[in-house]
């Protein structure tokens, strides 16, 4: 398989991440179990005339895509692939409420148009004049991983050199009410920074968007190398998940001890985090552990934040205090990062990142 390089990233999340001058040095606290994005000034990235019609989610996603392309120094990518678990929940809810309260009369067309899952990929294509491959993956906790797989295949097929691949998901009361009923969210009020100290089931609602330029060739500004992705759907027991990890690592000619940094996608949910914790205990003991969902909350495409985090750790050779699990021993150099995410213990995924050698 070819080499894949992350040559740019643009991330808007419940932390200040849109600005690549800092790396999680200012941390935002949330007290009410719902984490929402820290927003940039959209006019820095989007033409005001274009802004007028765009929903909040579309603004956030387009701005992240623009940040990413600027960082990668790519004007027009060869392909655009987006992913979302729940799509434009806000516009969907607005359109639905109009239908129900106004008896299907006098409805706003823009709400409908902007609630289509591929509205983001279409908007970005229009904005950056990308006439190439365009796709949107919406498979819940695998949406982002599927998008990455799609992007890697395109590069492998030599149908693209630079692929813009990203994720977006937004918080929504409609989803909150349903997830709360199903026990996916915590019943008690929890400050996000204390998420991993809780001993209860459920997690916090989060959101975010992350875009990457994935390329077949490295650049001086390359963040890191992406080896590949593995998805494990509803493993029947822990053994199946652990075996899948062993198989994944050996496919990449790696041993457990080769992993320098283990990004653990636990969500502070004591009913659903067991297997990730077990992997840390039995297989990733020697790696430095990093966690992130206390900063982002949980959402279907949260693994995209982990990918950015891993890429930044490899690029800067630093681990921000806010994500480091203590006590910790920091390796002198960090060359290999393993991300192990789970979404509601249904969708498990592994991603391997490597430090891009300076000679490239």
């Amino acid at each position: 398989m070819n080499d894949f390089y992350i040559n740019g990233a643009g991330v808007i999340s419940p932390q200040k991440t849109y600005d690549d001058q800092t790396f999680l040095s200012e941390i935002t606290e949330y007290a009410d179990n719902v984490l929402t994005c820290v927003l940039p000034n959209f006019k820095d990235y989007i033409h005001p005339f274009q802004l007028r019609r765009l929903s909040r989610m579309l603004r956030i996603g387009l701005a992240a895509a623009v940040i990413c392309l600027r960082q990668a120094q790519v004007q027009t990518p060869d392909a655009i692939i987006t992913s979302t678990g729940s799509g434009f929940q806000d516009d969907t809810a607005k359109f639905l409420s109009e239908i129900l309260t106004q008896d299907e009369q006098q409805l706003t067309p823009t709400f409908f148009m902007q609630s289509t899952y591929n509205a983001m990929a279409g908007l970005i294509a229009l904005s950056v004049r990308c006439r190439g491959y365009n796709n949107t993956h919406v498979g819940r906790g695998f949406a982002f991983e599927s998008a990455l797989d799609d992007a890697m295949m395109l590069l492998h097929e030599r149908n693209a050199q630079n692929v813009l691949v990203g994720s977006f998901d937004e918080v929504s009361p409609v989803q909150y009410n349903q997830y709360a009923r199903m026990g996916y969210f915590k019943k008690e009020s929890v400050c996000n920074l204390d998420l991993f100290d809780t001993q209860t089931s459920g997690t916090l609602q989060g959101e975010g968007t992350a875009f990457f330029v994935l390329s077949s060739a490295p650049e001086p500004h390359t963040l890191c190398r992406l080896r590949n992705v593995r998805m494990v759907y509803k493993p029947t027991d822990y053994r199946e998940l652990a075996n899948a990890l062993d198989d994944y690592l050996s496919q990449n000619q790696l041993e457990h001890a080769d992993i320098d940094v283990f990004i653990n996608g636990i969500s502070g949910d004591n009913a659903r985090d067991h297997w990730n914790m077990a992997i840390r205990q039995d297989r990733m003991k020697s790696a430095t552990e990093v966690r992130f969902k206390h900063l982002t909350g949980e959402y279907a495409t949260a693994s995209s934040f982990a990918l950015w985090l891993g890429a930044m750790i490899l690029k800067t050779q630093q681990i921000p205090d806010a994500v480091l699990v203590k006590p910790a021993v920091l390796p002198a150099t960090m060359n290999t990062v393993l991300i192990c995410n789970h979404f509601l213990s249904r969708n498990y995924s592994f991603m391997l990142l490597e430090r891009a050698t300076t000679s490239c």
Partner: protein
Amino acid sequence: MSRRVFITGYGVISAIGRNAAENYQSLIQKKSGFGRLDVLTTVHRDTIFACEVKQTDHNLCDMAGVSISEGYTRTALLALIALREAIGSASLTENDVSDCGFISATTAGGIRELETHYDDLQNPQKTGDFLAYLDTADPGEHTERLADLFQMRRYIGTVSTACSSSTNAIMLGARLIANRVVDRIICGGSEALSKVTINGFNTLMILDKGHCRPFDENRNGLNLGEGAAYLVLESDEILKQSRRSGIAELRGYANVNDAFHQTASSPDGAGAYTAMEQALAMSGLGVADIDYINAHGTGTGNNDLAEGLAIKTLFGHQPPPFSSTKPYTGHTTSAAGGVEAVFCMMALQHDTLFPNLNFMEPMKEVGIKPVTEVRQQAGLKNILSNSFGFGGGATTLLFSKCL
């Protein structure tokens, strides 16, 4: 070396039939599914007609072999019925199926159930049968549901690119086989009608209140439809091993974007042209080798003009026979590419072309005429299937008959 991809089975449910055989009979008898909405509850029932699957959710549950209390959305039920037929048609064993990848497409997902139970689902105090529909609104839900039912855990995915969704699901499946991620994969899509879809398209003012007339000078918009369709895709290697043969080879595909407008196609048909041209280039075939085009042909002013111009530019004044089958099934949006790919399989197997109903007068700007009568012994070898969508997407598939 990338591998060749063959279609070995299919299943379909639409307004013109509960299975492939019924759909075929309707196609050759020129029987359309267009009419009043009887199953979906909407205030527009007497003004907006569509192509509805005339089965209640209870009936669909009986056909699918599941209970209504299990909380299958209508999109999932339609999908399950078509999926079962596809599996049977490819003669896959239970083990074969559990080793299959599965890529499904939808835009509606469980929106119909969300709109039906919206207030109840929001009310933590309320209990009742509606609770079966908790967390079923998103598009990925039906994929996981069906993957769970058939134990398909090898590679699952959901695609949503509006009206080209299923086509992109099929193309993705083919690439997963070509890239050796899977050997066998079931791809397609499902879409149930809902208030959101009916009202959404209505606000865009692209619904024909009468029966749609694709490629006609006096066309006045599209008719919506619902349905599901799945195809079984297998690698050449696995077919050789199991000594089975395919119906057709998926020999070319292309997905491009015309980056022109949020909802409209570029009026010169640039996206449609490039998609067809690239699919042809991949297959190594020339324009003269194409025997039929199953057009996207929605019946809107914009789509048919763009697609018609693209066909004329690529193929010249005398293009191969082409038709839109949407006057039969309505525009089943996300499912359309799957439904039409299945119709392409039937066309190849029966060597028959299906007509473009309601066509009277060619578009002034283009002047080309679709097939208007059933044509048997059509000599079909290579056919194209087009799908375009909101967001500027254009995807074309090229199928070649297995001899």
